[in-house]
């Protein structure tokens, strides 16, 4: 646009762009409204952090009295004694089994979406939609699904069924996070591999996956931590069929878990039983929070390495 037409559009208007600026409207009121919004937004952030601290404190203050070394290395005894060794071991087993299924499939799905499907691929966008829908499935529904798929045909609840259900919870999280990370891998790496005549699968294995390793690991830890806290699928698929006082790790029978332990002790009649459940809640929460912080640290480090 030339200078002439710039000034031409102001002709005939009451506005003179060459006149010095003078304040109009109620500046004080506008500033006060803005200030009010800033204070409200700050208060909202303070509120959210306060809620987190209240939840953490509520669990820690009630659970800490139950904690001791014995609490994590002994099985429960009676209604209120002992610890949560078998539940802890069971959670680790079920989650590890689920992760073993979900993490590879999730990473492969992420690879398909970023490395093999074209940018305008209809199949890829259908798959993305499917992953979104899967991530939006209520976990209790996942439990019902696995109940129909595995528990009914086998006529018994099992750690196996619970692990499959957790895998379904983890899969969309893993696929989404690895897709995000793979998109961050610089295109120049792919082009360099192509220019050297490297086949795509070989480029994926030896160039792209190593570059994205930190981010994928972060996603894996977050997905695993999410699954470790799940209760609804285990309630449906793996809540009976084990001796609550013994270590039982046979995947094809019931396997105890920390979240089911908390769920099943909240209506026991003894105050000490509830204290034991708070102790279990505290252990579970600490494990999950530590995993989350760890994931963040790994992500920050790998970002540093990728120079961003």
């Amino acid at each position: 646009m030339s200078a002439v037409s710039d000034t031409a559009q102001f002709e005939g208007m009451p506005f003179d762009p060459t006149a010095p600026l003078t304040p109009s409207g109620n500046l004080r009121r506008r500033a006060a409204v803005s200030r009010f919004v800033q204070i409200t937004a700050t208060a909202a952030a303070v509120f959210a952090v306060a809620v987190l601290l209240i939840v953490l404190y509520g669990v820690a203050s009630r659970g800490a009295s139950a904690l001791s070394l014995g609490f994590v290395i002994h099985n429960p005894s009676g209604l209120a004694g002992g610890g949560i060794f078998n539940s802890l071991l069971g959670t680790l087993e079920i989650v590890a089994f689920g992760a073993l299924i979900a993490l590879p499939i999730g990473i492969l799905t992420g690879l398909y979406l970023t490395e093999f499907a074209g940018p305008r691929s209809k199949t890829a966008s259908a798959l993305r939609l499917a992953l979104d829908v899967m991530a939006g499935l209520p976990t209790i529904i996942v439990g019902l699904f696995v109940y129909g798929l595995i528990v009914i045909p086998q006529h018994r609840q099992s750690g196996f069924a619970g692990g499959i259900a957790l895998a379904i919870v983890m899969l969309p999280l893993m696929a989404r996070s690895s897709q995000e990370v793979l998109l961050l891998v610089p295109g120049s790496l792919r082009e360099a591999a192509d220019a050297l005549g490297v086949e795509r699968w070989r480029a994926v294995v030896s160039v792209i996956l190593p570059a994205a390793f930190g981010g994928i690991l972060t996603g894996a830890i977050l997905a695993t931590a999410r699954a470790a806290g799940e209760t609804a699928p285990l309630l449906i698929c793996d809540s009976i069929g084990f001796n609550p006082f013994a270590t039982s790790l046979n995947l094809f029978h019931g396997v105890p878990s920390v979240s089911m332990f908390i769920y099943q002790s909240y209506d026991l009649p003894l105050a000490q039983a509830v204290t034991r459940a708070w102790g279990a809640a505290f252990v579970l929460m600490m494990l999950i929070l530590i995993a989350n912080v760890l994931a963040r640290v790994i992500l920050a480090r790998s970002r540093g390495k990728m120079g961003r």
Partner: protein
Amino acid sequence: MFGLCALAGVLVVLTLVDVIYQLVSNGQPAISKFGLGFVTSTRWQPNFHIEGAGALLYGTAMSSLIAVVLATPLGIAIALYLSMMAPGRVRAVVGPLVELLAAVPSIIYGFWGLVVLVPFIDGIEPGLHSALGFIPLFGPASPIGISVFTAGLVLTVMILPIISALSRDLFLTVPAELKDGAAALGATQWEIIRGIVLPTTVSGVSAAVVLGLGRALGEAIAVSFVIGDVTAIHRSLFDPGSSAAAEIANQFPSPVDSLHTAAMFYVGLVLVVICMFTSVASRAIAGRFDVTRRVI
């Protein structure tokens, strides 16, 4: 390698199809007995072989609505603070802390809600009733603080990090040129927010809210602890109720008969259709922002 990756994708789609199939086939006795009237019938009486999900769906809707109504303004305010107002160091600490709210397992929210929040709600319900009692939803306080309202508050805390984290990421994508331009014209921070930031991100924020709604609709464990397991519709939010997901969690382990189990699969089917709808809607609203790809 391509084959392997494609196979993984096929597996994802097959799983989804099978979810629907399992719910339909296991819910078949209830579906053929109650038909579509199941959704509106409010009598859930397994002992008399009468099951209707109306009251459960009402509880699901009301508790989720409370959560969305409270969490949306709060979440957006937090996101505005984190993206535009907080100093760098504060942002680096507060942002992750808010996201940690999403990491707390639902069983802990349920347990905490029952033991800590319920007595607190019990204390504030009479005040809310006398202040807002002219609206029928805020009736006389329940005796113990276990209510649809309490469930809504727990859900608020659970979906708050989803809405705030997604919105914050969206607000950060608003081009600095636009904001600086508005500031150069003399706009105050609120005018920049209202004139530039919110209009450019409104579709993405709406998608985040719908995503949070979907999460609230499907939450079972935390809700089952605090909603009261009463399968009837009460006008007041301070009365106990039940929700679809919570009822499955409460009754599935000990069903009355096989029809009861089938009815719960039917409830699950209705719930999954609603949740799939919210997932698709969220994606459709998000459009080009594609916020739903973010991992929390």
